[in-house]
């Protein structure tokens, strides 16, 4: 918490990056958040509401500097120095609405405070810089040191301490009309050279009160010097080896829009990344406070980093305004994740076409293992040359991966993304066609490829029981495999002992025990399933039928894709 405070203070989230063309004051415009007063100068009002949208900035030319007259150099409570100190004529702007005063102010947190915003012109010379009409309207007051401009909606714009006043009461003015010069007029005792600017508005349920002018002035100033591009913000959650990397990003310039997040592993350079991703996942906790929910990102920990060594992750939001990527709060994060237990079977991935067709990534999906560990994994059937995704024509949202004679359910949207599947490639099948395929284990939440010293790359997957061969119950259930399945096939031959199993296979979620190749009594009856919840489907009884079914499935796929 303390760290957040400290870091947050330094954030100055609303950083403007605008240079003044042709101006000596080439520093980029920036401003402290509304409500953040100079320390010790009172309690501000953090109010982003723009009470006077569309108003022009009240000083004719930039630069201008909104800050305190009392708590800055030359002020009665300031650090000493002159009102002309260069520190008074620099960014960032500082809000001083509600700055400590004894004056009653119903909208200030303390109930008292400063009514408006003090603004210095480009220099501290008096009677040089023009103050101008912020809007079309009528002059309703010219006092000894005040001018009021009132617009058609009744909002009043107060200009105090001007000299060389150019308008009279009742005069109609247009936006930009010169009203007077920024000065220090204040009865018999001059004040510092500045424009005190108020907004007064009849607020429903309150009355005609002084409302915060700061955000309206910022918007108006942006209109004068060009739009201010604000850097994205966000948050990086702690890295969890099991559930992965989560966080959210948001661009203050695009409040109701998902933006892209960039994740950089083990590198300080935000260019050294492995692809950007649209952060559009629902984060419930953001809906109310931010007014938009789809700002989240979530990815698994890259498999190549599951090595027991410490790694660092940095997260950035990509600026819709073209600014540099902005690192989010709590980034970087460090993490150390070990290699998960390799359970199941290994399925040969065709190289290079299969690897490419499945959109596998050596960084995200692949771990290096020793030859012995690889050899300990029983061989399964080779992975299909490319993924085929289908859903039922019944309107069900379930997405199935066609894996030989099996249909395997994608367990979640996160899994769809983790597998790099493109949702637009999902084709619709008649439910009866889907029913013709046996239900295999659900697709694992993420792909895990293994590579030892040889060139081969394998996918570690569940054994699909009740496969090729006749008869036998197959498919033990269970969400987590606990032991290496052994098959009759040798680990190195890739012959796919997964063909074992029988027609009456159980639809296990994941094999939990050995399945003797070709044995019709392979484990996997429904009773043995651990938390499967899958529907048991009769399986085609013969290899020939399965081939026909697979061909039919492929034909369907082709036909649907052509539509």
């Amino acid at each position: 918490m303390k760290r957040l405070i400290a870091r947050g203070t330094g954030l100055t989230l609303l950083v403007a990056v605008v240079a003044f063309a042709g101006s000596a004051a080439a520093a980029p415009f920036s401003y402290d958040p509304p409500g953040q007063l100079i320390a010790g100068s009172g309690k501000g009002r953090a109010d982003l509401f723009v009470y006077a949208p569309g108003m022009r900035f009240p000083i004719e030319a930039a630069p201008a500097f909104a800050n305190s007259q009392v708590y800055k150099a030359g002020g009665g409570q300031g650090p000493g120095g002159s009102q002309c100190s260069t520190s008074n004529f620099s960014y960032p702007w500082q809000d001083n609405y509600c700055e400590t005063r004894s004056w009653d102010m119903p909208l200030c947190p303390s109930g008292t405070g400063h009514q408006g915003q003090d603004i210095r012109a480009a220099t501290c010379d008096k009677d040089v810089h023009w103050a101008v009409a912020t809007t079309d309207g009528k002059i309703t007051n010219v006092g000894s040191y005040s001018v009021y401009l009132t617009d058609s909606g009744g909002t009043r714009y107060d200009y105090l301490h001007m000299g060389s006043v150019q308008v009279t009461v009742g005069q109609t003015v247009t936006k930009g009309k010169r009203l007077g010069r920024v000065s220090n007029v204040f009865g018999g005792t001059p004040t510092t050279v500045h424009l005190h600017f108020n907004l007064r508005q009849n607020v429903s349920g309150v009355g005609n009160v002084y409302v915060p002018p700061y955000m309206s002035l910022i918007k108006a100033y942006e209109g004068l010097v060009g739009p201010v591009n604000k850097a994205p913000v966000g948050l990086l959650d702690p890295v969890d080896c099991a559930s992965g990397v989560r966080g959210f990003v948001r661009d203050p310039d695009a409040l109701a829009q998902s933006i892209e997040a960039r994740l950089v592993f083990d590198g300080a350079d935000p260019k050294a990344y492995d692809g950007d991703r649209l952060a559009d996942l629902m984060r419930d906790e953001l809906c109310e406070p931010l007014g938009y929910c789809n700002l989240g990102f979530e990815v698994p920990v890259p498999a190549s980093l599951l090595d027991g060594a410490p790694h660092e992750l940095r997260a950035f939001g990509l600026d819709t305004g073209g600014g540099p990527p902005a690192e989010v709060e709590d980034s970087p994060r460090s993490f150390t994740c070990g290699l998960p237990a390799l359970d199941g079977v290994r399925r040969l991935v065709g190289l290079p076409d299969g690897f490419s067709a499945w959109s596998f990534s050596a960084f995200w999906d692949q771990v290096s293992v020793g030859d012995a560990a690889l050899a300990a994994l029983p061989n399964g059937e080779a992975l299909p040359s490319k993924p085929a995704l289908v859903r039922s024509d019944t309107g069900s949202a379930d997405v199935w991966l066609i894996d030989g004679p099996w249909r395997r359910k994608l367990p979640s949207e996160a899994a769809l993304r983790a597998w790099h599947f493109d949702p637009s490639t999902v084709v619709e099948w008649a439910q009866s066609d889907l029913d013709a395929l046996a239900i295999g284990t659900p697709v694992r939440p993420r792909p895990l490829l293994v590579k030892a010293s040889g060139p081969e790359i394998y996918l570690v997957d569940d054994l699909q029981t009740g496969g090729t061969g006749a008869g036998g119950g197959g498919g033990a259930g269970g969400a987590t495999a606990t032991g290496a399945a052994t098959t009759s096939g040798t680990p190195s031959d890739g012959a796919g002992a997964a063909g074992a199993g029988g027609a009456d296979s159980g639809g296990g979620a994941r094999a939990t025990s050995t399945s003797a190749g070709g044995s019709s009594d392979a484990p996997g009856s429904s009773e043995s399933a651990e938390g499967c919840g899958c529907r048991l489907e009769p399986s085609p009884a013969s290899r020939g039928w399965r081939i026909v079914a697979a061909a039919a499935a492929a034909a369907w796929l082709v036909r649907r894709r052509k539509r």
Partner: protein
Amino acid sequence: MRSMARCFIPLLVAAAGCASSGDAPAPGDVTPSPAPAALARSTLATVSWPAPERVDRQALGRLRPDARAALALAPVPVLVPSAEALLGSVVIVTDEHWASAWAQADGVTVTVSGTRLAHRVPSIAPIAGKDPVRAARGFVTENEGIWSATWPENGVVYTLDVECADPAEARCADRAWLLGLASELVYVGGAATKEAP
């Protein structure tokens, strides 16, 4: 972590929140509004026009002709100071939803305005006025030596400002002169009583 996240979200919203020092606002001081400018709405009050016989004929008669003429365009009942010296300098300015009377004399500038248009600000809950002003409760404050009051009357909202040429002079030393002036404001007409003059 949860508390940090709670702290951070207001930070994004209000661009202050956790970033604040002890003197800066805490999250929750203001209800964030996701799209502030877009949420602004205006409401138009129904004016309760005083009976024509309540027009102060004496004050009306002392207004300059241009001010009397301007009354016919005032969408709200116009109140003016009753002091002799001020009445002669009154300038009436009107617009579609508001009217304002300005006067200046003896080192003091007075502005009285009334508006029937109110702005609804989602983040601002109703706040009851705490200061008695005329027959209502409103707010009284001082702004750089300018004393000001706002209060409801005739179904609309009025504002009275008093500015002394020398902010240190007695009339601007406290709220007493302002409130006295407020109590002496008189009704001189408006669009609904334009036949009055």
